[in-house]
């Protein structure tokens, strides 16, 4: 045993993992601190957790280097793209926690609730920095495991447990498919590293073609499950409807950002030699996703289900950026995700505020006559809905504009025309809510459970989409610069 030589020196650039290490330690510390906080003062835990996620966002910016750095023998990659994604993820988590303070205040074991949200954030941050299928998969599972538990957190609510179980089973299935695909790519290239797979696949002979195609199809199917592309979207409406509303808001942003970052890295680094093949697969999926998301949303009566289908529809539009497969397309995805975060968080904040005589206002009819009782909320909801529909000069318009332009420049004109058609279909069900708010009679008395964090969220998100609608330039520049080093 004396002459054992360790072939690997101590890992370098450990400071680039500072945000992740901070979140991990803070989450574990919070788990202990929470034990000393009385049940009626649990909002202290929430504010501590919010502070942790905001500090993590600041640390992510702070460790950014001018060049891309790898740590842990190439397993961990820190570039501008990862930093941008991490800031978005941390902000999404902070918003989700702010929304939770009031909604979850009567639940037991709140400390673990916020700790699980922090661990999910850690998983997403690791996904954003993953340069390797091993770290990417471990980050993905860390995130997914936390979210399965968070979806089923309200154990007394039957549909919450049901949603959690459905999500868990389908999530496990999709992980299996993803791993099955990865084994094929590993078998052909002999590497788990994205760039290593890229060179391995480019050098592979013709006899490996079947294995490569199987790997490609299974990897895309597994990832498509995670970002809810049709026909792998089945879990989305049930999980969104059953989950506590703040968790629905949380899982509609961070996990999608992390999923698309991983998607972009895999397509750009590991599978560039298969661009024709994956463009074909993704085009088919995008056509189906846009149709399913936007058409099924029309038929929904529950607004959480409607927003679930609307997420699927937006994922369809975001996929245009993947299909464009260039820096502009990928930057457009990040622009889209940033604006989408503000729109969705604002909409969910108002849904949480809606309360009709103790019953959470989750039906679309519940919004009838809102403008007469609460003109300010009505206006905020109206702006958010117009933005989600993509009406010009609100944030949502520029999100769609960015991906559509990127796709047109990459030569996918017909696909963009198709997307415009479904964008118009989507406008119908968003604007229907505005019609309920402004033109319908009030039926049952409103009973708003107001609190300053919720009001702040509505205010911040609404101002953000209006400001981003008028000055979209800086955000687009930031995203373009972040993506510049990728290809």
């Amino acid at each position, binding site marked *: 045993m004396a002459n054992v030589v360790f072939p690997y020196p101590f890992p370098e650039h450990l400071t680039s993992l500072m945000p992740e290490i901070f979140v991990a330690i803070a989450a574990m510390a919070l788990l202990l601190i929470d034990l000393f906080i009385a049940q009626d003062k649990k909002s202290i835990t929430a504010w501590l957790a919010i502070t942790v996620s905001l500090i993590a966002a600041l640390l992510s910016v702070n460790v950014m280097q001018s060049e891309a750095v790898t740590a842990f023998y190439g*397993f961990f990659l820190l570039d501008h793209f990862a930093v941008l994604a991490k800031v978005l993820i941390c902000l999404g988590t902070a918003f989700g926690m702010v929304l939770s303070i009031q909604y979850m205040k009567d639940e037991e074991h709140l400390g673990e609730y916020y700790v699980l949200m922090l661990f999910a954030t850690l998983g997403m941050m690791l996904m954003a920095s993953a340069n390797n299928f091993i770290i990417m998969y471990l980050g993905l599972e860390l995130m997914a*495991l936390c979210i399965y*538990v968070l979806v089923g957190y309200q154990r007394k609510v039957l549909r919450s447990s049901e949603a959690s179980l459905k999500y868990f089973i389908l999530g496990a299935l999709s992980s299996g498919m993803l791993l099955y695909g990865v084994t094929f790519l590993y078998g052909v290239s002999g590497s788990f590293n994205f760039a290593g797979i890229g060179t391995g696949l480019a050098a592979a002979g013709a006899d490996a073609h079947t294995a490569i195609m199987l790997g490609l199809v299974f990897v895309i199917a597994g990832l498509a499950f995670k970002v809810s592309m049709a026909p792998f979207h089945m879990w989305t409406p049930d999980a969104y409807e059953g989950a506590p509303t703040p968790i629905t808001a949380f899982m509609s942003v961070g996990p999608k950002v992390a999923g698309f970052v991983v998607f972009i890295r895999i397509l750009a680094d590991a599978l560039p030699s298969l661009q024709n093949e994956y463009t074909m697969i993704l085009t088919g999926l995008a056509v189906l996703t846009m149709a399913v998301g936007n058409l099924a949303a029309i038929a929904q009566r529950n607004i959480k289900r409607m927003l679930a289908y609307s997420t699927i529809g937006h994922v369809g539009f975001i996929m245009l950026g993947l299909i464009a497969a260039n820096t502009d397309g990928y930057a457009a995805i990040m622009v889209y995700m940033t604006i989408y975060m503000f729109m969705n968080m604002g909409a969910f904040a108002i849904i949480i505020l809606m309360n009709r005589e103790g019953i959470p206002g989750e039906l679309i009819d519940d919004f009838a006559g809102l403008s007469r009782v609460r003109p300010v909320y009505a206006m905020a909801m109206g702006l958010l809905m117009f933005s989600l529909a993509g009406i010009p000069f609100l944030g949502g318009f520029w999100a769609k504009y960015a991906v559509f332009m990127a796709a047109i420049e990459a030569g996918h004109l017909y696909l963009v025309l198709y997307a415009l058609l479904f964008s118009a279909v989507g406008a119908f069900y968003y604007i229907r809510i505005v019609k309920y708010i402004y033109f319908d009679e009030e039926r049952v008395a409103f009973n708003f459970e107001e609190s300053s964090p919720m009001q702040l969220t509505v205010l911040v998100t609404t101002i953000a989409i209006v400001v981003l609608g008028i000055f979209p330039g800086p955000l687009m520049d930031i995203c373009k610069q972040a993506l510049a080093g990728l290809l």
Partner: protein
Amino acid sequence: MLESAFFNLFAGLCVLSALGVVTARNTMHSVMFLVFCFFNAAGLFFLLDAEFLGVILILVYVGAVMVLFMFVIMMLEQKKDELKSSVRQYLSLGGVIAVLLLMEFVAAASSGVFVHGAHATAAHLGQQINNTEQIGQVLYTKYLLGFEIAAIILLVALIGAVVLTIRKRKDAKYQNISAQVKVRREDRVRKVRM
């Protein structure tokens, strides 16, 4: 010679005990057969110089997973006649899967990929180091980041399992530690004049 004798012993017992698992009437006997099957499979791993896998198979599957199985079986008593009817119910589907698997095995065995000596094991390559040491060297160095994340995943699984199952029962007695600590002698001991 000795190696093939051991292989036949372990492989034969493995198949026999696997048959025992599916034919035993008593579920507890099935579990014990499965444990025996795992021991023999571990023996096969040792013959392949994969002693790490062999040890892990015994530690994890026999030591933890099968014990869990036993707990579950002891808690959920199943009636015997239910078992009989379920055999007939799944016979057709199970039969199709078994035939397909058999065909796959025959095709793989006759493909010429798995010929004797084609895949030399570590000892035959003249390695002076066993594979437990080899795994240990990379697990805590090259793959350290993944190892740490896996540890956090286990922690999350633990927290999640507790959060989803813990419940406060109204009729349960809880210890009130601060009340216990605050107790003074006068509260408990009373001087009685006889």
